[in-house]
Each structure stands twice: as structure tokens, then as C-alpha cells.
């Protein structure tokens, strides 16, 4: 199967001393975690610096988890869920996006660049989109820079 699809271009190795973002990714069990698995099955290469935490639904992601991640030094947090109307639990993702929208406003009030928190929809068949989301988010976080909490 690994030869079915061409391995995508690999990310450049980080130079010594270069800022290496630490990214936490919350994936819902049914869509985005499956999408991440599919990226793996398809051998789509991507940066190594993210760690996935699986929840049953993106709506389990309590804003407190996101705040804790930033307080513990995460440079970026991605929350991935099922596309609107695709939620395995009917409407969990609608709650998620409300919370994330409000949480981004709060993060801004905390002085964070709100783009450090991103909500994206990745379906079980979107291995490609998972890869793209990780790559783009990684690039964006590199551009934003290190979490100010880590600098203090």
C-alpha cells in the first residue's frame, strides 16, 4: 500500500538553534483522527513537532485544555473535528466552533496571537487535508514565533 501513493516532499530538517514549535493537536475519534490515520496509511510526510490527543468528539475539548496547553508552553494548538453536518454526535462540532471562536477572543485579551489556536475540519477521507493543515499551521507558528510564556 505504501507504494500506492507517492510520499510527499519531506520537510526540511531544522537547523540547530532554530525555533522548533511545539504543537498540540486535538482530534475527534471519528473524522479527524481517522484522517490523520489515513495520512499515515498514505505515507504523507509532515513536520514531526505535533502531538495528537484523541477525544471522542471535538466538543470534549474544554477551553481549559487549550489554556493549559499554552500555559505549559505549547506554541500552537489545533482542534480538528468533523465537518459541519458530519459530526458523529450530530452537533458536537457546532458547540466546538462557538467555544473556539470565543476562546480566540479571550486569548487575544491575554496578549496571545489568537492564530496560535486554530479550529479546522478534517474528515476521515482527508489525509491530504490533515497533512496540509499540519504543514500550514507549523509554518504559521514558526512565523508567529515562540510562545511568550516560554520566554519568561
Amino acid at each position, binding site marked *: *500500500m505504501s507504494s500506492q501513493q507517492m510520499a510527499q516532499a519531506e520537510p526540511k530538517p531544522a537547523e540547530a538553534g532554530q525555533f522548533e514549535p511545539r504543537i498540540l493537536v486535538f482530534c475527534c475519534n471519528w473524522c479527524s483522527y481517522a484522517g490523520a490515520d489515513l495520512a499515515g*496509511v498514505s505515507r504523507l510526510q509532515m513536520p514531526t513537532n505535533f502531538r495528537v490527543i484523541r477525544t*471522542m468528539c471535538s466538543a470534549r475539548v474544554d477551553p481549559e*485544555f487549550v489554556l493549559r496547553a499554552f500555559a505549559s508552553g505549547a506554541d500552537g494548538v489545533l482542534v480538528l473535528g468533523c465537518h459541519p453536518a458530519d459530526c458523529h454526535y450530530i452537533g458536537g462540532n457546532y458547540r466546538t466552533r462557538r467555544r473556539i471562536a470565543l476562546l480566540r477572543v479571550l486569548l487575544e485579551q491575554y496578549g496571545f496571537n489568537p492564530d496560535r489556536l486554530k479550529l479546522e475540519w478534517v474528515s476521515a477521507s482527508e489525509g491530504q487535508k490533515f497533512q496540509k493543515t499540519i504543514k500550514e499551521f507549523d509554518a504559521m507558528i514558526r512565523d508567529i514565533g515562540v510562545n511568550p510564556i516560554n520566554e519568561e
Partner: protein
Amino acid sequence: MSEKTGSVLVVGGGIAGVQTSLDLAESGFKVYLVERKPSIGGVMAQLDKTFPTNDCSMCILSPKLVEAARHPMISMLTLSEVMAVEGEAGNFTVTLKKHPRYVREDRCVGCGLCAEKCPSKVSSEYEVGMSQRKAIYVPYAQAVPMKYAIDADRCLWLTKQRCGNCKKVCPADAIDYEQKEVIEKLNVGAVVLTPGFQVFDATRKREYGYGDFKNVVTSLEFERILSATGPYQGHVVRPSDHKTPKKVAFIQCVGSRDEKVGNPYCSSVCCMYALKQAIIAQEHTHGLEPTIFFMDIRAFGKEFEDYRARAENEYGIKMYRGSRVASVDENPESKDLTLRFSSGASEVSSADFDLVVLSVGLEAPASAKELSDRLGIKLNEFGFCHTGVYTPLETSRKGIYVSGAFSSPKDIPTTVAEASGAASKAGAHVFMNRISIDDVIKDVPEDDVKGQEPRIGAFICDCGINIKGTVDVPSVVEYVKTLPNVVYAEENKYTCSADTQELIKKKIKEHKLNRVVVASCTPRTHEALFQSTIKEAGLNMFLFEMANIRDQCSWIHMNEPEKATAKAKDLVRMAVAKSRFLEPLSKSRLGVTPSAIVVGGGLAGLTAALDMAQQDFHVDLVERTGELGGRLNKLFTPEEGKSPKDYIKGLIAQVKASDKITLMMNSEIEDVAGFVGNYKVKVKTPEGTKELDTGAIVVAVGSEEYVPKEYMYGQDKNVVTMNELEDKLAHGHFSSKKVVMVQCVGSRNKEAPYCSRVCCSKALKNAIEIKKKHPETEVYILHKDIRSYGFREALYRQAGELGVKFVRFDEGKDPVLGKVGEHFEVIVEDTVLGSPLLLRPDLVVLSTGTRPNPDNEHLAKLLKVPLSKDGFFLEAHMKLRPNDFATNGVFLAGIAHWPKFIDETIAQASGAAARAMTIISKEFLETQGIIAAVNDDVCDGCGVCEPVCEYRAITIVGTGVPDKLKAVINEGLCMGCGTCVAACPSGALEQKGFKTSQILAQIDAALEGGAK
């Protein structure tokens, strides 16, 4: 063997077969699911999205496939075919031929090394030939079972005794070139056929150039092109030059409604899938301009008309209505395409496109003839399985049933409804031999680990070289040993192999492990396996955690071994951190009342009630009026030699004769309390309120016929509804010389924008009836589209042949009826002629639409189920759960769901009965382990959680202390999503298995060494 058996054979592993199997298995029957291919999934697995919700097809299908594969009551027999079925209903002997896989299923772990090293390339069936697979392969990435198979015709070893790479590299020693065909015999009580369909071979329409012109593709190929997993990763490009097309033409009815190719019927789904593909293509590619060339747009299903309107109005998809496209020509240099088609009465136009998609029709499967011969079932004139309008699930042989596209082309929801229906029918032959789940799975007594310090055992998998090739597994093992509470860690070549399961059990005992962590692949496919392993060793199955170091580490960081190793360590550390906080969870068992209530005594309600009574369940049938039979009482024109009125009479007699069914006439549901398996329902009857205990509720309340306010209805006796015409025809009161039928009266207008589905075919049926009885009478049908889908297309043809005249008018240009003296005058803008047409009929027949019952809202509130925006009942999922409500234990059938035909109603009613029987056939229901729980010490019933729960599993109740409230979770209804837990402002809610402390431990472990 003379003893009756509790087993059923299901032939075909597409969505229909899988649904039938799951429903039977959940009702306590042993299922043999036979699939000719190496894996199940069928055509639905190939689809990108599904209409009208644009759900990701694989996302919704794959959980069902996995569930079927794991179900202890389902034996999945892939690469197998049925050779013969002998005996009779209740006691069939099935002869099965198992083709060799050449890979031992018990050993293959699906690592894929073999395919990597296989030199023989074959065009991929799954990708419709647009990309290649190897001779040793799995059909698609998420295939179930995830077991490789060797294509014997293309394998170098099997054909020429050369190569043998796969055997050399397989680390699990799973390759077995010596495997031979095996003949097996099975004893079953019933058979369900679900072989599906095949798509029309587009090369037969030579004029469209498919096969010659690279940029002419079939709709199935286009589906793959749209798919993120497809040959172009979801980028819409044309095959010739991989450039993004701008102008894309969809040609409808390729291989459908076409006598020349021998397929006079309509394929029912192509209009909708073309709209879907046009929408999705446009979403993928900015500026793409799709044009759909069609004859009629058949958007007859639930929310379809809305979807069509959105496609046209919001997406700006061009719709070109005309006769069939005449031809496609290719510019040999640019590979662009020119379509020729008629415009207006006799002119021919042409237009250029970058890409042409042929909306190919559905044909009977290639295996139809074989199945017919081997099983002794009749096929119809189109080569599909023969069924009847009143027996939509029955083949010509008793005890053998059919569901899905094998009996006629149909969409997925109709297929799924039928699939459940077939399970009900099959179950009627085996119900006396139900098997309890406790007889299948033996329970091991559980060790009590409460209060014990965590003792974690970690098993790190090499997955052959899939993980080890990138990740330094020994160093991960050494690292894990240093983590707190880890008392044992080891490396396995394949942690999932059968011998490793034994090893894990041994180590649990040896080291007194009370938590197990496996670092290997994805929990989505393997968690259940390891959970059952630790369960067998006496550990609670929830004391298990997985780290995904293959799919989400080694495979996506193949060129960075050091970083991948560091990440693997992090992932295992996170899993270990969570596992420290894991707690044993119990699934509680709730008793079930083995009876059901059916609300509504029309066709759907009576059918559902009889199906359940047939399997010996008590049914309370609640009918609001004093009469059973519903709308069928008014339908007189015979179908297949019997009028609906006569059919319903027979059904009513059966219901009245059944000692299992209690009829409650002139009665209404007053109150519903309780939950799945244990409802308490108050019914208001003429004798006072009765309280019933029941396990499940079937909603079959039907709908109303629209009563026209327009076209002088009620003012002139010669303006009648279609039902009144049937009455006249049946009772000799018809003597008109010129009849005008007006379609879409009360449908597809501002007030009711949806299509009522049945009116076109009903008009055709009655027009034919008139022409047969009174050949001299002129009949005109004024319509917006003729939506005689499926085999009903034959009615359209027949009506035309009998001289019925069709006049099409545009939306918003309804015909005008006037009266001059004693004569009617109908003026209609004929869109084909482009000018108004004056007709002087002596009878005007109105094809009145279907309207939802006005009091649906009341019942919906009582049952806590939703209505669609049109006012019909809204099922749990429009694609895959047509019979269910999101509220567990409440089911749906008939035109309360959506307007539909008699056969469709019967199938869905049986389907609802089957779904209800998956509940009431059980001695007990088991709650999920991962559910929400309330901490009563903290909760004050603030009520934030209550509306957040989509399953209505939370209620705010009194605590016994005046004015004090609290939230209560109904464990039978909670699905364990955790939405309420994150919403809870007081911290009183927790999600078992995903507790806040557990997730925080993962977060902290992931970021260990960071700030704070």
C-alpha cells in the same frame, strides 16, 4: 439436519449486506456475510461524498464496516461465493466456494511490506483503473478486513513460479501459495441477497467516445477524481494533461432510459449524484463551470428538491434541459470536447468543454444470472431480482429475500431501509432460535484494582519494519522503562499477532499489571482487540491505552528517524501518563420490555406491527381514528393485479386476527417517559388513559393529502383529485372524453417546495388505466418534470405509447383554469413549443401533493424527536439511518418520514420493525463504558448541559429537597461524546474514559519540560 437454525446467510458485503447483517446480529442471529471480493464495502466505499448532505462517504460507512467485522455474531466470509442453496425456508443448506486468498488471514497484520516489494502492477478496481495496485493488495486503504490477497492471475509466482518476493519479505509468514479452493456447507434458516449493482459500461455508447477520448470519464471515475484518497488527491484535473478544467459537462441518462442499450428504466440516482458532483467539483475548484445536460431532473427524495435549487441558485450550476446529448467529439490536439445536442424543436447546437462526465446508470450485477440459476430465484425483464409492489423484499423463492440495488436501482437511504427490512423478513424464519450474547462471549471474572498503585505494562510494536524501519524501538522500550509506574516494557515484532495476545496475558499475571499500554498503530482498528485480550486476563477492558506510533508517527516521518523516535517516546509517555489515571469502568445492564408500540394504523404501521408479531413480540397499535388502513383505503387502481385498497383489507384482517397485536382505536399518545428498552407510554383511549410499558416505539403516523384551494376545486364537480379519479375509474363513474391532469398541485411551490415523489407515477398509472378502459378519451398530463424513477419509467413509456400527451410548464408558470360557459379552458405555457396551449377538457384531475400531519409537532415533542423544516419527521441520519431517530429506541416508517410508494413504505416499515427488534429481542441492553457521569456533590441542575445533549440523555430533576435540582444522565441514551462535560460550568460532569484529569495528564506529558 432437521433442526431449525438461528443462522442467516447474507450474500454481498456492500452497505445493504452490512446493514442487514448488523440488524440480524443485533437481534440475536448468527450471520454468515459472504462477499466475492477480498474486502467488504461495495460501491459506497468508492464514493467521495453522498447527497443531499454531502457527508463524507467513507466517514459514515467505515464505522459500520468495522462494526460488522468485529461483531461476534457475524462471520465474514470474503473471496467466497454461493454455489447452491438447497432445502427450504427455515432449513437451507448452502454450498459455499471459498477462493484462495494465498494469504493466511490469521497471520496477516496488514503491514503492506509484501505489496511494497511486489513487482507486478495491476490496474486498481477501486480507482476504476485510474491508478495501479500490486498483484498482492488490499482493495483500498481502509479495507475491511485489512488482510492482503494475491491476485492469482497477475502473481508471478502463481503464474510462472518466479519472484516469491512477498513470501520472502512477509515478517508474519502469512503467504501461502498452496492455498486451494475450499467447498463448505452451511446450515441457515433464511437468505438475504444484497449483491448490489454494476455501473453501465460506457463504451457501449460509442457516440460519447468513452475509452477513446481521455477527457470523457464516467461518474464513478469522477467520484474518485473528487475524492481526497483518489488518483489526484481530490484535485479536479482532467486525465489527458492533469490540468484543471474550467468547463465540465455532465451528460445524464448514459445507459438509462435508453431502449437502444436495453435499459429502458431510470437509474433513480444519477440526477442527484450529478448535482452533487457538480457542487463538490465547484467547491474544490474556484471558477469551475459545470453544466448538466438532462431530460428530467428527478429530485424526488427527502430534501432533494432543496439541494437541486441550491445547486442552481447558489452554486450557479447550469442546467440544460433537452433531449439526450447526440454526440461528443474530441479536438485531437487540445483534447477538448465538443458536445452536440438539440436545442428547441429541430435545431442542433454544440458547445465546447474541457471535461465530460458521463452519468452512467445502474445495471443488475454481473452475478445476477448466476445467482438466479444457483438459487432458483426469478429475475425481472431488466435482469434485476424480481419483486412485487406488495412484496418488495421477497424473491420468488420462499425464505430468500433481497435488499438494495439488486431489486431495482436506488439510493443509499432506500437501500438501508430495505436492508433492515430484509433482516426483519429473514428473522421471521429463525426467531425461535435466537442466541444470547452471553452464550457467544464468555465473561472472565475481573480483578479488583481499586486503590492499587498503578502497575503499567507497555508493549511496543515493531510492526515488522513499519515502525522499526523509522523508529528506534529498543530505545523507546528502554525509555518507557524509566517512566514512573511502568513495571514492565517489551518490544514485539507484531503486538497484534495471536501469540503476542497470549504473551500479554501471561505478562499481566506475571507482573501483576493493572494497566496496559500498547504503542503500535491506531486505536480505531486495534483498541478492541487489545481490550478483549486484557479482559481475558481478568483486567477491566478500560484499563488500556494506546499510543499510535505507526500511522501518526513512523509513517508520516519516514525520513527523520531521530525525530520520529523522540516523538514516539513522547507519544508513549502521554499514553502512560493517561493510563495512570485510568479507572475500571463498568457497563451496566438494563432490562428490556419485550414489546413495542406502533403509532399509526396505516400501511406502514400495520406492516411494522405484523412483522414484529410474526417474531412473537407483543405490539400495541395506537390509531387516532376509528379506521385502519390510512390512505390506502382511497387507492383503487390495481397494481400488479391487486388494488391497494384490497391489499390493505387483507393486512387489516391479519392484524385483527393476530393475538400478538392489541389494537387501540380512537386513541392517542398522551405522554412518553423512560428510555430505550423501558418506555412508559400513556395512551388516551375512549375507555380512559392506559399506561403501557414498552421497549421501542415506531412512528408511522403517515401524512395528509393536500386539499387544493386552487383550480376551482370544491366549486366544480368536474375538478377532482387523483384519488377521486381512482374512485371514479374503479366504480364505473368515469365517462370523460378529454382529461387534463395537472401535476405538482401543492408540491414544488412556495408553500411546499418539496417534491411529493409519487404523483407523477400515479398520474401515469391512472392515465394508462383511462386509456385501457376508454381508448378514445384524450389524456393530457401537464407537468414540471416527469419523475417516474426506477422501473416506473416503463409507465411513462407505456403512457406515451397509448397516446397520453405530455405538456411541460416551467416553475412559476402554473396552468390557468377558466370556464367559458359550461366548458373548461386550460391555458398552459408549453416550454417545448414555446407558446401557450389552450385545452378544453371535460375533466380536470389534480395531482395533489403530500403534506405532513399538522400535529406532528405535538407528537415530536412527546417523543423528543425532531421534525425537518418541511414538517416531516427527521431521522437520525439522512443517509445511513433512515429508520432511526437520534433518540434511541424510537423508529420511523412510511410517509411520516417522507412521501413514498407502497413498496417503499412496506420495506421501510419492515426496516423499522427490524430496528425495533434489535432492541426488544435483547434480554438486556448494555450501556457504553465511556459515558458522562454527574458528581451530585457539585451539581445544582443549572441546566447548561440539558440542551447541549443531542441525544436528550440529560434531564434536570428535583433532588427531593424543595427547590434543589440536579442533572441526571440516562445511561441508556448517553453516547459518550463529552459535549456536555466541556459545557458544564461547575465541573460536576465528567466523561468516563476521557476524564479531565486524564486529558490534562496527556497535555502535560506532551509538553513536559515546557514552561510552568
